[in-house]
Each structure stands twice: as structure tokens, then as C-alpha cells.
């Protein structure tokens, strides 16, 4: 029976480690995932939210993408229908990033209202599927 208790002690230790690693991991790396409307609401309530990195999921406004290949900067607008934000992103955009796709940008909302993105993901517009056209 002694070994059993020792094992239980070890098991609690392992479980505790896993739990600790997970809670600290979520605390340190967890990022809010918001729609533009939710982001606007958060910022209105608490202006310090500008300093918090967030992810924003929204649709790229048709025709709003301008690419400056020289400075590797892409500017575009995203919207969820009610709230629209201009986004500035420096880096390479994924192939799937085009007009009207659902994109996820991660970064900070500047006090001037532009969203400065450090990562840019585009959900494949067709999600590996296309609807057959007549």
C-alpha cells in the first residue's frame, strides 16, 4: 500500500504540473478573440485596452487592400457589418488573403483607431471548397 500512496503523490505532482503549466500558459499567452464591434465596446469601457494585444476576426472590405511591396506594408479595412477598422500590416500576406475573405488579425488597436497587426491569417475563402457556378 505504501507504494500506492507514493504513486498517488507522484500522480498529484504530475497533474499539478500539468495544471500549473496550463493556467500559466493561458494567462501568459491567451489572447482575446473579438469581432470589431466587441473590440469597440471593450475600448469604450476601458481605454487601457489599447495596450492589450487582441485577435480580431472580420471580413476584408472589398477593394480596400493596398499593397506597398517596397515597404512590405499592406493596408486594408475589415468589418463585421457594424464596425469597420483600418488595418496596417507589415510582412508577407498569406496566399489566401484577398478581397472579401474572413481574416484574423492579431495586434493592437492604436489610439488613433488603426489596428496595427503583427500577424495576418486568412481563412481560405473557399475553405478548400468552391460552390459550382452555373
Amino acid at each position: 500500500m505504501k507504494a500506492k500512496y507514493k504513486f498517488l503523490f507522484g500522480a498529484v505532482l504530475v497533474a499539478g504540473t500539468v495544471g500549473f503549466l496550463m493556467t500559466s500558459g493561458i494567462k501568459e499567452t491567451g489572447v482575446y478573440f473579438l469581432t470589431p464591434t466587441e473590440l469597440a465596446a471593450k475600448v469604450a469601457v476601458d481605454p487601457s485596452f489599447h495596450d492589450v494585444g487582441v485577435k480580431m476576426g472580420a471580413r476584408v472590405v472589398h477593394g480596400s487592400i493596398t499593397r506597398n511591396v517596397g515597404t512590405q506594408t499592406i493596408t486594408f479595412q475589415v468589418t463585421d457589418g457594424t464596425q469597420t477598422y483600418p488595418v496596417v500590416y507589415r510582412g508577407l500576406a498569406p496566399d489566401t488573403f484577398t478581397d472579401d475573405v474572413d481574416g484574423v488579425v492579431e495586434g493592437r488597436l492604436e489610439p488613433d483607431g488603426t489596428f496595427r497587426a503583427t500577424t495576418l491569417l486568412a481563412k481560405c475563402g473557399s475553405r478548400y471548397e468552391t460552390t459550382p457556378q452555373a
Partner: protein
Amino acid sequence: MTTLGQLGLWLALLIGAWGTFVGFYGGITGRAELIASARRATYALCGVLVVASIGLLVALLKHDFNVAYVAGYTSRDLPTVYILSAFYGGQAGSLLFWAVVLSIFGALAQWLTSRRYDHLLPHVAGVTSAVVLFFVIVTLFAANPFERLPFTPADGSGLNPQLQNPGMVIHPPMLYLGYISITIPFAFGVAALVSRRLDTGWLHAIRKWTIVSWLFLSIGITLGRWWAYVELGWGGYWAWDPVENASFLPWLTMTAFLHSVMIQEKRGMLKKWNMVLISLSFLLSIFGTFITRSGIISSVHSFAQSQVGYYFLGFLIFIILAMAALLWLRLPMLESEAHLESMVSREASFLFNNLILVGIAFSVFWGTMFPIISEIVRGTQVTVGPPFFNQVNIPLGILLLALTGIGPLIAWRKASVRNLQRQFAVPVASGGIAAAILTALGMGNFYAIATVSLGAFVTGTILQEFVRGVGARHRLHGEGYAQALARLVGRNRRRYGGYVVHLGIVIYFLAFTGQAFTVDLEASLNPGEVAEMRSPWGHTYAFTHIGVSQYDELNRLVSAASVEVARDGERVGIMKSEKRQHFTCSAPIEPCPRQMRQRSFEPSTEAGIRSDLREDVYIVFAGVVEGTEEAVYRFTLNPMVWWVWFGGFVLVVGGVVTLWPGTTIRTVGQDDTQGGYAAQLVEAKRA
């Protein structure tokens, strides 16, 4: 042909329902004619689903674009191999694929399983028929690949170019085969519970199936990594994407199961735990299919959101409740025959291996589901990404690596000091030497030092086992070294195959460590301009932009950028990265005139990759500055990537060795306290 396919599906619905009923009812009552009928039902189910699948394949190959599925996933100019892979490339087809493959596995389980397990087989037929039935129902009522369009398009919309890659032809079916084949061990577990035959019989019956599905999962995951690496162009092979995680979860629980069944076989312990593990693995395989198919979590992989998700959710809940009830009913029959005698024993090390594997699985599951969990609990979605998974799993992985070395060599029951000295002196020394060398070389990354020295420790245990085993056979039986090695492995396939698998795992760990040292650089270059970067191994790379050319190729317009690569001043060669824009032609003219081209899909990237044992050079061409020849690149130097593929290969070789027929299993005798085969050999001779 689609009529035939539809007919096949409807017949499968009836036969599946009959097989489920008669399997369990026949098993419980023991009536021979019902049992025979259950067995025949699995064969018939397989037959009608194969016919249905042929129906879909013929529709695909004959370009029957009136069928929505055919029009949605293929086009006239699509190469035949991708037309065939479109069978499982889309949602509806992949569900039919699940059903047909599982029905084949179900029939094989009835046909191949030894008569010794006849008491389990009717229930097994019941379970496999029920799961097939579920997939047939989803296929028929939520995502039917035979559905017709009200009109016939002239051409289909084609397959996404990112899926037009050889890796994508075999990666999904391998992963599916892994997912699907877990159903068979699960079915035996359920059969043992229902029939109250809870001896180790069911474990012996499924030994091969377990390894087979674990192997398919491993191959599927490795091919998925390879596809992501060569095709997605972001420079890595694992991003902790929800769908990747979903394939990793059952792999983890199956790995735990593979180890813990040995404890039950040898010591009669962990009976409840093993039932929980196999149920969990099955649930996670369905969950993996659910994640991919439902679009519940946004992922680059997921398919369109659809009501298919609700079917899966319902099925998952049903299995959880049914298994919980069944386990609760049989709990008194699942008592352990032995107790843990010491913390310094193989039992204890396997228990910790299981705990850590399940801990990793839990954290991966939690991280994957966290957006949903946080939305329910706090009302706002919070996501976690690769930093979370790495932060949690690297320490756990390192612990697991240590156990990989300890587990196989430590004695059962209670290890003596002599056993510990005998088995671990050399490996611990080699681990220590590796750590010392790395520190002397100025390596500052703690995790890297820990991984490499533990890798050396585990490799030490494995080599020691091979050397001692061969040496013992050479001395005792007078065999030559080559013959001794062949016999050693041949007579103990599970043990030595397992060692080889462990070696593959060590190689994986080393390769993953390399990822911590990846460097990349984004640069915009005019022709003739050079970008320089230093690799983690200390080499200096110079990339000279040569130029961009455009040309037509098959169904796409290719822009190719060429770079001359030099390492430490020596020319390595020219590397090329492409941007491809696929198009469809509005008229069947070859070659398609420019004004008749319609862009199909987003452009795709072909990365330029040059691989050697130390590092990969990975070049992505991101585009040209309009009207000039100035090109934007991302250069990545990726250490040790080759070893990921090699580790996968070693792992598969090891798995195949364990599968080779002809192993015998012994239970632990009173004197059998020495771990390690060589030690046993010597001891047996002495006695």
C-alpha cells in the same frame, strides 16, 4: 451510377441496423443462427458500401457534373490521381469513405480473428455495424455525395491547388485509416464488457489492430507535416492548428494504451484504465472527424459549417453516456489482480508514462477547445496559440523522453540496486557526457541541453540492449553476430520493434529541438542584390536575386523567382520559388488564350527547399514590386528538418517489426525481476 450508389447507401442503412441489433442480441442470447447472421451482416455491409463507393468513383471519373459533389471538387483538366483523391477530398465523400473503410475493417475483424475469440465477435459485429450505420445516416441525410444539381455545369470548379500535391493524395486516407481502425480495438473492448469476458483475451485479439491504427495515425501525421511544410509556405511543419491537434489527440491516447495494456497482460492491473483509454481514443477519433467536418473551430483545414456537426455532437454524447453506463455496470469485474509494489519498478514508470501522455492530451484538448470554453464561461473568446502549446508540452515531453529510457529496462515489481546499476550506468554516463559537451560548446538553451542529453541517455539504453542481446546469443548459442542480431529481433519482435520505435521518437525530439533555432529574414531585392544571413550552425548564407520569369504550365500561370545561393562564400546552386495562379478556360482551346482565362482559387506558393542533414534552406517568393523586377522574399533557415522525416521512417520500421507475426507473451514469474532481455537470457541460462 449514382442510382446504384444511392441504392447501396439505403441497403447499408438497413443492413447496418440489422447487424447492430443481431450482433448484440445474438451475442447476449448465444443463439447460433443470430450470431451467424451478424457475421454475414458485416460482410454484406462491406459489399453494399463498396458498390456505393464504386458508384461515386465512376461518377467522378466520367465527369458527371450534374452530381453536385463531382462538380464541386473536380474539373475536366484535373489529373486522374486528383480526381480519385477527390473521393475523400470533400465532406460528403469523406464520410462515405469512413463508412466503407470501417465496413471493410469490420469484415476483416470477423474474418481474421481467431476462433478462440468467438465469444466476443458477435458484439464486435454489433459495434462496427452501429458505427458504420452512424456514418451512413450522416451521409444519407446530411451530406450526400450523390445529390444532383438542377442543371449540369459545363465544367466543375476543380480541386483547390493546395490540395493538388502528392502528399495530399495519401495524407488524408492514412489519417482516416488510423482514425477508423481505432474502432476495432474499441469494439473488442465493448464486446469484453458486454459479454463479461474481461480476461486478457480481448487484449490479445486486438494487439495487431492497435499497432496498425497507431501506425496509420503516425504515418498520417507525418505526411500532414510534410504537406504543410512543402505546400503552405510558412516555413514550418506543425502549427498547433486545431485539425493538427485533433489528429495528435488519439495518437497520444493510443500510445498510452499501447503501453498500459502491457501492464494488464503481465500483471493484471489497470483494467478500468485500459477500458477508459480505448474508449477515449475512439471518442477522440470521432472528435477529430467532427472538428474537421463541422467547422466548429476556425482552422485552415475546416470545411464549410454544416449540420453534419450536430450529428457528430449527438453521436459523441451518446458514446460517452453509453460507455460510462457500461463501465459503471461492470466496475466490480474490473478489479486489479495485483498492487503496485514499488515506485522503482516498470509498473510505476509505465503509469507515469500514461499520466504524462494523458496530461499532454488533456492540455492539447483544452487549448484547442479554449475559444469555445472561454466563450461559454466568460462570454468572450480567448484563444491560445503555439506559445501555449509549446510552454506546456515541452517540459512534459522532456519528462516523457526520460521515461522512454527508463521504462523498458527497469525491473518489474521492484527494481534492485543491482538492476539499476546494471541497466543504467552506461546510458546515464552517455547522457551526462552529451550534456557536458553541449555546455562546453556554449549551448545556452536549457531545453535543448535537456533534450539532447536525454536523447543520448535513451539511445544508450537501446544500444545497450541490442549489444547485450547479441553478445549473449553469441556466447550462449555460438551464433555469428549478424545471425544473433536477426534471431534476437526475430524472437522478440515486440520488444525490439518497440526499441526501434523509441529510437524514432528520440530522433523526433532532436528534430523538434532544432525548431527552436530557426531564423528567418524578409527582404525585397533588385536583380543582383544580395541578402545575407547567418545560420544557427554558424554558416553564412548569401542569397542573390537573379530574376523573375513568367510562363504557362498546364492549368496555371507561373511566376518563378530564382535565387543564387552561396554558403560561406561557396556557390551552392540556384533555387527557385514559384507563385502559381490557377485558371480555368471558358472554351476548350489549347493553349487557353489570355482573354478566356478565369482565375480559379487564390494564388498558391511553391517554396524552394534545399535540405541537408544539418538544416533546410526554405525560400518563399512573395511577389514582385509592380512593374519592376524587384522581388520580395522570405528566407528561412530551418535546422534539423530532414530528421523529422527520418524519425517518422524509423518509427514506421519499428512498428512493422512489432507487427511481424510470431510473438509469444510470457507472464512474469517469481524470479523474473530483472528488466531487459539480455539480463533475462543470462538469468535463464544460470537457473
